[in-house]
């Protein structure tokens, strides 16, 4: 089934016309209501009248996550706060998350896009969807939640954190679909096997997985262990949240909602647009967003696009799996993490040297994050309690900033490599192949 046949299966010529028209209006809007964009465009000597078709998009300035931070909290919003009905945020460096605002219209688009995704996964109003993404500032939980409701299905707002409860809810409420990170799905699969309740007593048939990169091998493992069809859903809060793109029954790339989010692939080095099919950095322009419209937002996700027709009938361009990042962001249990965030916390703790090492691994299908730190001379104690207390304090400070629990490891002085140039701050032992 296709949720919105006219939009998802639009002819290429019609779509480009529509995208061009929407881009023109978007540029007009941001030019007049967002000083940041007006200044940038003036510096580049581009005016709204220069944008006549979607091809003119390459004349527009890029936007980065740093721009969002610099304009914290509301300076990139294009409407007065009276029009904003929801805020979401992703964790940032100390005290500075990146904030996005949604108008009622933005939420309607988001619900529509997520409903499109759910329909592409084979779900309909008879489905009962357990949403295991965290509810809160993170867009995963509420994004899926509203999509399921919009589609007319039943949503169980399970949220994240309690595996035993999640399993019993899915069992007792007859959940037919599960939304969570793919690594959590694998963890859940093992827990489900060991829970004592036979698989036949579960109605599960669809998996809605995103918020972190995963592989075909993981898909096979999830599908065989859970006995479901597993689909990818992609999104990022800066653009909207989950539902920016989604797989269809053919599981051959994720269809981008390109009537709302115009994708480009650029070279991360030169920022020059790359031909369709080539791998590079994914860039989105939010064609219809009202709250915080973004021009050419650099996702830093590396992938390629495919505009050949899909067997499912959708003409929406497809993106490949994310093969990497053009920056040093890590995704741990679905949470985005920059080493610089850890650094900002470490620098504020007087008992610590300004050196750290992140060791990421996947144990029993769950990501683990170990943060190695060195205690500064003069803060070593002969008392175990003091050292354990220090460890606890560091863990709590990091958790509050990162939104992620980490295993803090106090290491001996000089253990963490000091290097002149770019220090190696991350060891990622996860094998995503």
């Amino acid at each position, binding site marked *: 089934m296709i949720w919105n046949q006219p939009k998802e299966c639009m002819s290429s010529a019609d779509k480009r016309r529509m995208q061009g028209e929407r881009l023109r209006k978007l540029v007009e809007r941001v030019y007049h209501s967002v000083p940041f964009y007006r200044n940038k465009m003036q510096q580049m000597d581009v005016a709204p009248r220069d944008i006549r078709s979607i091809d003119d998009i390459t004349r527009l300035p890029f936007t980065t996550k740093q721009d969002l931070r610099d304009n914290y909290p509301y300076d990139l919003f294009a409407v007065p706060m009276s029009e904003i009905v929801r805020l979401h945020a992703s964790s940032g460096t100390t005290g500075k998350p990146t904030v996005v605002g949604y108008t009622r219209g933005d939420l309607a688009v988001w619900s529509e896009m997520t409903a499109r995704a759910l329909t592409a996964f084979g779900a309909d109003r008879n489905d009962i969807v357990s949403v295991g993404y965290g509810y809160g500032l993170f867009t995963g939980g509420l994004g899926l939640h509203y999509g399921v409701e919009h589609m007319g299905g039943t949503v169980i707002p399970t949220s994240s954190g309690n595996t035993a409860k999640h399993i019993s809810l899915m069992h007792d409420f007859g959940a037919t679909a599960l939304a969570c990170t793919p690594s959590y799905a694998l963890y859940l699969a093992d827990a489900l096997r060991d829970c004592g309740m036979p698989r036949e007593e579960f109605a599960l048939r669809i998996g809605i997985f995103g918020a972190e990169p995963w592989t075909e091998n993981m898909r096979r493992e999830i599908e065989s262990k859970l006995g479901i069809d597993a689909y990818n859903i992609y999104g990022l809060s800066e653009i909207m949240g989950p539902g920016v793109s989604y797989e269809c029954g053919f599981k051959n790339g994720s269809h981008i909602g390109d009537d709302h989010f115009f994708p480009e692939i650029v070279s991360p080095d030169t920022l020059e647009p790359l031909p369709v099919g080539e791998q590079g950095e994914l860039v989105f322009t939010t064609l219809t967003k009202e709250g915080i419209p973004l021009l050419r937002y650099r996702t830093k996700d590396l992938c390629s696009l495919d505009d050949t027709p899909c067997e499912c009938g959708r003409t929406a361009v497809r993106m490949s799996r994310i093969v990497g990042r053009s920056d040093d962001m890590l995704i741990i249990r679905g949470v985005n993490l920059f080493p610089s965030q850890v650094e900002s916390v470490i620098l504020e703790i007087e008992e610590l040297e300004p050196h750290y090492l992140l060791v990421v691994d996947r144990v029993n299908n769950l990501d683990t994050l170990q943060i190695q730190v060195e*205690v500064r*001379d003069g803060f*070593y*104690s*002969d*008392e*175990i*309690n003091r*050292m*354990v207390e220090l460890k606890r304090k560091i863990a709590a400070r990091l958790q509050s900033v990162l939104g992620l629990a980490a295993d803090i*490891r*106090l*290491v*001996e*002085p*000089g*253990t963490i490599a000091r290097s002149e140039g770019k220090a190696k701050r991350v060891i990622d032992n996860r094998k995503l192949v």
Partner: protein
Amino acid sequence: MKTIKQLSVFIENRTGRINEVTRILEVGGINMSAFSLAETPDFGILRMIVSDVEAAHRALKEAHFGVNVTDVLLVTCANEPGTMHRILEVLAREQVFIEYMYAFSEGEVANVIIRPTDVARAAEILQSHQPC
């Protein structure tokens, strides 16, 4: 009873780390007369009474160990039933909290290292009560 200097060393829980400490002490000609090791899952703290605290401190720091010097009480008493109990009774009665202690005895004499939270106060109490 007297107040003496104790050297403590932060050590990661890895095979061979203590050897590194003892090797440095050997090279420096420093004798260890007592030690205890406290451990957590990922690190431990080695506490030692050594013949030359300053030299040991310097040598270990040069080898990049996290070291710390603290005052502890050395109580020497008769190696017979009840002595330890009398010492602890006095300290407990005066509400002195003990972080940790370690001891060894041989022949007529027993030596106990006590690390109270408040070393000076504990020393005063033991001085005035003379439990052993």
